[in-house]
């Protein structure tokens, strides 16, 4: 096909007869970053979608090979920045697995609470951005209203609003802010009061439903074959929640449901994410008054050295399964590290989902995939 340089030179290239090749991105509001899609159209019908990645490829995997096991965690907050807590948690868990550190009970509960708050914040942002892709501007302001409350809670405890670097090997970096419980409870009551607004504004909106239902259908079998995880797979009825299947950090001790929809279209994925926020609230409510006293960090050596071997951890981020694969030679830095990012696999299904549909529907399909480009490129 065409090389990248050719594509950048000409915005449109006429393909074979009746075909039109258009570029979406790297600078396009609906790609949520710098994704580049080369779309072959026949009239308005999509014949082929070729993603071109790498516009934010920051060589994180190469960098990690020269960072120590304490240092490399900070880079991962910048990978999937919307679930940075969970990214950090995955790395911390992997190092703990290698060193066989037992994390104190208090740290585990703090990790779960922070992780679920992050999940809500991420889904809130997705909701606002996706509604904006479909032409509705108002939901953006509603969702950011709640998101700012979470950001404030994060800032109190972690000192940062977005890239926290809070989960470290052995526990968490510092203790909770004294105001944490009060603020989280306030957030939970506010959230419960305000979420029905989303239902009125979006879920039951007939225009929205018409744009979402039956668009970008992905069957359960294809979802597994394409390696889709997270809400994308669960919207197709595939049970894939790592928190349920391979519980970590005490997720097996809290009660929550894995949200499953079977339709596999954009509307199903939307419903999954919306209902997942309620499940996260449920987890937070169970734990917020039951934070055990004690240490927030296990005693670890100043210099961490993983034994020779291979370690793999899987966690559930807001987008799906994140895998951290560390190959250690016994030194202070990893020999090789691989991040199996959820967005990369979810994106690979885009061509399959959008083929044959109209180009206008592509925005709905892409919006509900919830792509974070630095997570895909790494």
């Amino acid at each position, binding site marked *: 096909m065409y090389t990248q340089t050719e594509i950048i030179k000409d915005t449109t290239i006429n393909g074979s007869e009746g075909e039109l090749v258009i570029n979406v991105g790297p*600078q396009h509001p609906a790609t949520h*970053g710098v994704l580049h899609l080369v779309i072959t159209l026949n009239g308005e019908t999509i014949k082929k979608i070729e993603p071109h990645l790498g516009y934010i*490829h920051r060589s994180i995997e190469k960098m990690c090979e*020269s960072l120590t096991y304490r240092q490399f965690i900070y880079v991962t907050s910048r990978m999937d*920045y919307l679930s940075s807590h969970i990214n950090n948690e995955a790395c911390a868990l992997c190092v703990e697995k290698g060193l066989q550190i037992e994390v104190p009970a208090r740290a585990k509960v703090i990790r779960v609470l922070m992780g679920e708050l992050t999940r809500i914040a991420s889904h809130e942002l997705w909701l606002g951005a996706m509604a904006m892709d479909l032409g509705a501007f108002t939901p953006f302001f509603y969702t950011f209203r709640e998101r700012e409350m979470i950001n404030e809670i994060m800032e109190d405890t972690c000192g940062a609003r977005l890239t926290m670097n809070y989960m470290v090997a052995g526990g968490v970096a510092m203790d909770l802010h004294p105001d944490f419980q009060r603020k989280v409870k306030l957030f939970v009551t506010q959230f419960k009061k305000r979420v029905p607004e989303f239902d009125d504004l979006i879920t039951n909106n007939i225009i929205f439903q018409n744009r979402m239902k039956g668009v970008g259908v992905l069957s359960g079998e294809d979802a597994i074959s394409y390696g889709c995880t997270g809400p994308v797979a669960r919207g197709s009825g595939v049970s894939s929640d790592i928190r349920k299947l391979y519980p970590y950090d005490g997720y097996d001790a809290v009660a929550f449901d894995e949200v499953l929809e079977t339709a596999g279209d954009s509307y199903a994925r939307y419903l999954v994410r919306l209902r997942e926020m309620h499940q996260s609230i449920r987890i937070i409510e169970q734990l917020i008054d039951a934070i055990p006293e004690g240490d927030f960090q296990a005693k670890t050596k100043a210099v961490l050295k993983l034994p020779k071997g291979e370690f793999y951890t899987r966690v559930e981020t807001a987008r799906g399964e994140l895998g951290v694969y560390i190959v250690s030679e016994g030194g202070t830095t990893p020999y090789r590290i691989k991040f199996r990012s959820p967005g990369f696999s979810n994106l690979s299904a885009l061509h399959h989902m959008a083929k044959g549909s109209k180009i206008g529907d592509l925005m709905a399909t892409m919006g509900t995939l919830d792509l974070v480009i630095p997570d895909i490129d790494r």
Partner: protein
Amino acid sequence: MELNQGLAVDTKEFPGQILQTPGGGIVVSTFDSIINWARSNSLWPLTFATSCCGIEMMSVAAAKYDFSRFGFEVARATPRQADVIIIAGTIVNKMGPVLKRLYDQMAEPKYVIAMGACAISGGPFFYNTYSVVKGADHIIPVDVYIPGCPPRPEALLHALIALQEKIKSGLTREQIREVSKALVLI
């Protein structure tokens, strides 16, 4: 030290004198300062975000921080309609030509804000990477730099106001350098 302390013009008010006369007033000013005044109050940013800083930029657009108070509310998706490009995030080698092209497509006068450590110098991705551009000013000239990873929304607001003051002062890059040198000497 605020830059505008040393600049000759008062950047807060309407530039010019209003002389009250019967039946109305007369404004005495120069075209340059009126144009700069008008220009600085309706800067339309390009929705350009490569990574994390873009999320903080969205926060600034949302209700709590709300940069439309200062005239930035019309975020444009096409560079041809935008006045200011906020480089929110890391620029990598593959993105470099695209950024240059976006900048070239913008109509004059155009301004650039480098938001966050990555856009200033590569930030956390400075060492041991094979693909990161160490600072967006290797590609296009930058007017205002904001430190932080990512910067707080207030920092972005401050940068936007600093850009407004820079425009209102009507000075060139060299003149500003002279003024700030003089300020340092004092």
